């Protein structure tokens, strides 16, 4: 139903797409795979009319498309569900679904009809949400469903999904896949972009791999293994070992005792030693990020004690923690980790200005030299330290955030989803740096939803569920199955012998505040 031939798109200095071919059949899920910067996003922007290609042709239902723009795309039944959701937070669900084409009666919006039709559309997706609730009150997963309903309302035949599962918990992902299968059964074609290699075989029919703007290959998903796909993506094979040696650990540097904060953290006790990586696993919204933020002094907590370097901490804020050598590499590097419009150099020294320049004035030359050291050390791919952070790839941005904390001479590093949304090669590098930190005696706490990473990197793993630490596992006892078991509360389900039904579990999972929305107000301030 969709064919693209020889698509070429050039940006100043870069060829983002070089004669790429792509096609989509009705009723299939076609996965688009590639590292960051491989040209996936550019390709979907061309296919949805957001960018005009410099060369090549797009055919939809056999018709050549001229003068493509978002309105034409809507007309041709192509819809994109971007990673950053395109909903208006203070419009309600129905108003969002019908945005841009409200049903009218006597020239005014027909709210009654709109809500009836929106509810019907959501029901057909097995989604139970009040069409009158504001979008800002929904979880990320629910918002995504609203986006899908919105796309289907325009009678879209082609749905493009950009990393739809990146902020969903395992259970929500399952629901999304069920929806996807339902849609393909109706003959809708889906272009699916993902970084999660594990899910490809579960959801896809065919897969197209891009690398550096080039078309590498298109395969039936059943005829290719994950390793082969990774090989196609990176051009050379990456070993799946994480290079972490599980050596002896040093003295205790951080201890958290009976920390409570509303419903988000309940009686949490953990410890962290020098020379070790402690993994923090759990579903999105299980309280992992809340714990990190409480320790770092960003959020206040109700009760409990935090002991740092043997001293009990009282009335502290993030600035005190930085002074004491604690660092937080946050989940959302673009918003919380970096000043995107500042150059790399300023991003690197920003947290160490008092130490580097005690006499108040900032020396540009010195700043540049120091930044250069870290750029070299961390192999940040950039022509100069003057380049703005926003022009770096995700992996390199993450390295800049890391450089910022190395520059403060931090001793404790808290990573929140350190490798989310960054490509395979850069992931391995980040893991390498974490290992290096630990070898040099620093302490690392790592929040991660990628189980292979948690298992391969952590000396110990704490699993959280609904604001509690459920279990502590030494690295010899960590397996994906065990962690999922604890994270999703399967242990309780079996212990109670079916006393907890599937619906209860549903309730338990969805009741935890979603991290993406739950931390909204924190970001805003």
């Amino acid at each position, binding site marked *: 139903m969709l064919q693209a031939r020889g698509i070429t798109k050039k940006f100043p200095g870069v060829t983002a797409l070089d004669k790429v071919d792509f096609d989509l059949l009705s009723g299939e899920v076609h996965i688009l795979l590639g590292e960051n910067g491989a040209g996936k996003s550019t390709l979907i922007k061309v296919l949805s009319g957001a960018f005009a290609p410099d060369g090549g042709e797009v055919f939809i239902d056999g018709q050549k498309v001229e003068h493509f723009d978002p309105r034409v795309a809507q007309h041709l039944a192509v819809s994109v569900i971007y990673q950053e959701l395109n909903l208006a937070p*203070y419009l309600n669900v129905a108003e969002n679904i019908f945005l841009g084409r409200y049903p009218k009666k006597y020239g*005014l*919006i027909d709210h009654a009809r709109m809500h009836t039709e929106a509810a019907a559309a959501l029901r057909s997706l097995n989604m139970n949400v009040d069409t009158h609730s504001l979008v800002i009150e929904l979880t990320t997963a629910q918002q995504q469903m609203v986006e899908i309903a919105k796309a289907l309302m325009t009678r879209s035949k082609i749905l493009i999904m950009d990393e739809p599962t990146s902020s969903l918990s395992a259970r929500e992902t399952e629901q999304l896949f069920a929806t996807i299968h339902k849609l393909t059964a109706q003959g809708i074609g889906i272009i699916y972009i993902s970084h999660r290699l594990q899910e490809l075989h579960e959801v896809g029919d065919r897969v197209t791999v891009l690398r550096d703007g080039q078309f590498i290959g298109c395969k039936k998903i059943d005829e290719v293994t994950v390793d082969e796909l990774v090989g196609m993506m990176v051009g050379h094979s990456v070993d799946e070992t994480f290079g972490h040696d599980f050596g002896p650990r040093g003295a205790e540097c951080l201890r958290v005792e009976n920390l409570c904060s509303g419903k988000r953290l309940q009686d949490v006790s953990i410890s962290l030693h020098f020379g070790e990586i402690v993994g923090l696993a759990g579903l999105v919204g299980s309280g992992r990020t809340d714990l990190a933020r409480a320790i770092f002094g960003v959020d206040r907590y109700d009760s409990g004690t935090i002991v740092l370097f043997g001293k009990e901490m009282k009335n502290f804020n993030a600035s005190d923690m930085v002074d004491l050598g604690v660092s937080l590499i946050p989940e959302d590097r673009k918003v919380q980790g970096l000043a995107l419009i500042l150059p790399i150099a300023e991003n690197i020294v920003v947290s160490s200005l008092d130490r580097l320049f005690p006499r108040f004035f900032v020396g540009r030359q010195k700043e540049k030299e120091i930044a250069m050291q870290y750029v070299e050390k961390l192999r940040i791919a950039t022509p100069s330290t003057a380049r703005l952070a926003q022009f770096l790839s995700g992996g390199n941005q993450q390295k800049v955030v890391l450089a910022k904390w190395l520059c403060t001479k931090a001793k404790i590093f808290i990573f929140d989803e350190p490798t989310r949304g960054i490509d395979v090669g850069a992931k391995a590098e980040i893991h390498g740096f974490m290992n290096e930190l630990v070898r040099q005696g620093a302490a690392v706490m790592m929040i991660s939803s990628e189980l292979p990473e948690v298992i391969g990197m952590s000396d110990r793993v704490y699993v959280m569920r609904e604001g509690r630490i459920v279990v502590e596992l030494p690295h010899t006892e960590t397996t994906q199955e065990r962690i999922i078991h604890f994270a999703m509360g399967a242990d309780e389900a079996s212990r109670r012998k079916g006393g907890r039904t599937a619906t209860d579990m549903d309730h338990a999972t969805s009741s935890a505040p979603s991290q993406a929305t739950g931390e909204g107000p924190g970001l805003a301030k």
Partner: protein
Amino acid sequence: MKSTTLSFLVRVPSAAWVVLLLMFIFTTVSGRYLTVGNIVNIIDQNSMLLIVALGATLVLLSEGIDLSSGSVLSLSGVTCVYVMKYLMLSGTSNTIAMFAGVLVGLLTGVVMGAITGALIAISKLPPFIATLGMMGVAGALSLVAANSSAIYINNPVFVFFGSKLDRYIDWPLMGYVSVPTFIAAIVFVAVWIVLYYTSFGRYIIAIGGNESGARLSGVDIIRWKWAIYVMSGLLASLGGIILAARIEAADSIVGVGWEFDAIAAAILGGTSFVKGKGGIAGTVLGVLVIGVARNGLNVIGMPTLWVPALTGTIVILAIVFEVMLSRWKERNRWVRQGLR
């Protein structure tokens, strides 16, 4: 949730509490405060502010700001009276001169709004800069047109806009309703319909909440953004015309500070600078906070020159209260979501 009473108390906008608190204080201090006449007076005096503040609210909801409303208000009053006076001197009837003047006044607001709107929507200037520039230009133009002072007008038909309804309608209680209040009420209903029952209104919220999302949903951002500032200009000019009719003169600097009052009223009413949060019902309360504070200070005999400073202080304190309360509510909403 602890109790329904608490959640009810929380749901009442903070501006309502501030109004009640202020009224309580003024009543205690002065026996002359809480009279029917004074309450009617407060509502009447602040009708123009409500009209301008409704425009400011729409702009804020779209994540914009309009600093030019005060100057546009002055300028519209001046052009309205100027044209009216000119026509009357050349022998046109009072009625026709009045209509022509009002039309020119409204047109002034629309044109000024259209220019700022174009700068923002088409030239993509930040609203702050574009409207700050227009604030200067419109303010200066009104000084030029009025020759740095005021133009007095004596048109018995025009006075309609500043009088009480009982002069025209012989119904009971009409003595309590002024024409400005009546117009403000109509404008409120009209803006309500626009905001909640037309695509334009919903697009304002969508643009404020997620501009790129709205664009990708096929919303014509340029056109609607432009329309928001035209609307704000129109409402500011309506305020200016009514004000001119009330004082039977167009004062070239009458609008100084109105943009702050209008924006403050919107914020006091719970409209926020971000994400299209808020609505126009709260703006009415916000206007009341400002009106009650100003009137009360006068009634209790505060020296006239001190009143603006004290009003400003009260308004800022009320905004702090509102912002802290809404932050608290926000925090607790996440907690509640966890509970559900």
